[in-house]
Every structure is written in structure tokens, then in C-alpha cells.
């Protein structure tokens, strides 16, 4: 199992970050190697919402299966993996804390790439590095999207 922890200061209120987290259709823009998503039930996140994500590993199409596991408005957002996808184990916990100038965001990922899913042709270390890169970029993209302002 691999654990990745990232912390960033977002120059926006926790409510703005929360809006991005609650809309599953932002997810392909948060992870660079995610392509699209279907959510069941469709729409904003609810505990128990199942998500199926199309993604890529190099030139190959892959799939991720997750479920929203915990929601504490403007404070905590958690996702866990479901069986059958590219990750054998997966949890993502996003913690939000208000600051004077915005929001402190802490993201913790714990994951394990599924050997059964990929088979023997793939190098697991390379896949793991790809996953880590996606997770590192996730928090930067979350910051960028939460800080977007409308045209006034």
C-alpha cells in the first residue's frame, strides 16, 4: 500500500472548495489521467454514490470504481474504492480548514495498484508512479478550480 499526503493553501472560502468536491463532473479535470465519469445516482455527491471513471495508463484505457464514503459539509470529503477497477485498495480523504486568507486543504490517499487488473505485461512500479503523479496534480487542480472567479 502506498500513502500520499499533500497540503495546500487555497485562496478561496471552504464553500468554494466544497462546491468543486461535491460535483463529480469536475473529477476528470482534477486527475490528469481521468477521462470521464458516470455517477450513480447522477448529480452532486451523496454518501453511497457510486462512481465509475474511465482513465488511461499510457495508451491503454482503464477503469476505476469508487464510492463516496463520508461527507461533512465544508470540512471533510472521503471516497473509497470498489472492487473491480485498476486500484485494489483506494481511499481519498480531503480535509478543509478555514483560514483568514482562504482554506487549508489536506488530502490523504492510500492506494494499491491491482496486479490482477493489469496482468503481467505492466510494470507495477511505473503504474504506481503514475498514480502518485495524478494525486500530486489533483490538489493543484482543485486549488485552481476553487479559485476561479466569474466574469463580473
Amino acid at each position: 500500500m502506498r500513502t500520499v499526503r499533500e497540503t495546500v493553501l487555497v485562496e478561496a472560502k471552504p464553500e468554494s472548495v466544497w462546491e468543486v468536491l461535491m460535483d463529480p463532473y469536475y473529477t476528470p479535470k482534477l486527475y490528469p489521467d481521468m477521462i470521464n465519469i458516470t455517477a450513480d445516482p447522477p448529480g452532486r455527491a451523496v454518501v453511497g454514490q457510486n462512481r465509475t471513471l474511465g482513465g488511461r495508463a499510457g495508451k491503454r484505457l482503464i477503469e476505476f470504481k469508487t464510492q463516496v464514503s463520508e461527507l461533512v459539509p465544508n470540512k471533510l470529503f472521503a471516497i473509497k474504492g470498489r472492487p473491480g477497477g485498476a486500484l485494489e485498495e483506494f481511499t481519498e480523504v480531503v480535509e478543509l480548514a478555514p483560514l483568514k486568507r482562504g482554506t487549508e486543504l489536506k488530502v490523504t490517499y492510500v492506494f494499491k495498484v491491482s496486479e490482477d487488473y493489469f496482468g503481467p505485461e505492466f510494470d507495477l512500479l511505473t503504474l504506481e508512479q503514475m498514480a502518485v503523479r495524478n494525486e500530486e496534480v489533483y490538489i493543484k487542480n482543485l486549488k485552481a478550480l476553487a479559485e476561479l472567479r466569474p466574469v463580473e
Partner: protein
Amino acid sequence: MPTLQDTIEILSPPQTVWRVLSDPTFLPKLYNDAVTVEVDPPGHSSVGQTLKIQARVTGVRVAILAKYTRVDKESCLESKVVPGGLFSEFDHLVTLRVLGWGTEAKVTFQYAVAAEYASKVPDLAMMERAITDNFRTYAKNLKDLSELLPLPE
């Protein structure tokens, strides 16, 4: 009205390219600055289906409203503007043609930024450049996504 055209060879059959082209959930990956898309009614592209694309262009959030006006399976997809968003004019046409064992895709964009947006954005020239960058990379992204392969059995 600015017009951009691009032609690209894709090493996948038209059926595969169409799968990407006609599924609106791919749009945020086809346009670099698109963030989310809402379609009404949900599902694959159909004539009259409306699109609301939220995008980030030069650090600001904008909406692009359009609807599909022509959907010919595995050969042609056209969308045009719906008033109220970033564009006052927007025509997007993609035609597919079998080319050997692959596909030739021709992509055309015609657009004009709505006056209400043009007067409000901090730097219109930078926004125009970002818009054209999105349109220029669309065909490359379509090729890239269409050429992805499933995992070996």
C-alpha cells in the same frame, strides 16, 4: 467571424472515433480549458440536445452554451451556439471519413465572443488566444483519445 480548420488522421476506425465524439462526457478532455459539461437530455449526442460547458479561460469562469444541430452516426457532428454564453456565434463541425484502416477527421470552428463578455474580461486578446488554443488542440485530443486501446484480454 474567425474560422479555424484542422484535418487529422486517426489510427482508429470511425466507430471508435465516433464513440469519443458523440459522448459529451469526453468534452472536458477534448477542450483543454473545459471543466464540466451538462447535457439536456442526458446521454449520447442527439439533434436538439443542449450543452452547457463550464470553462476556465485566462483565470475566469465562463459558460459556453450550444446545441447539436446535426448528428449523422460515424460521419458528421455539428453544434451551434445557444445565446447567453461566451459566444454570440459558434459553429462547430466535425466530419469523419474512412481512410485506409483509420479515419480522417475534419474539424471546423467559427466563433465570435459575445459583446457582453468582450467588454468585461480583463484582457480580450489573451482570451481570444486561449480560445483559439483550445480549438487548435481539439483535433489532437480527439486523435489521442480515439487511439487509446483496451487492456489486453
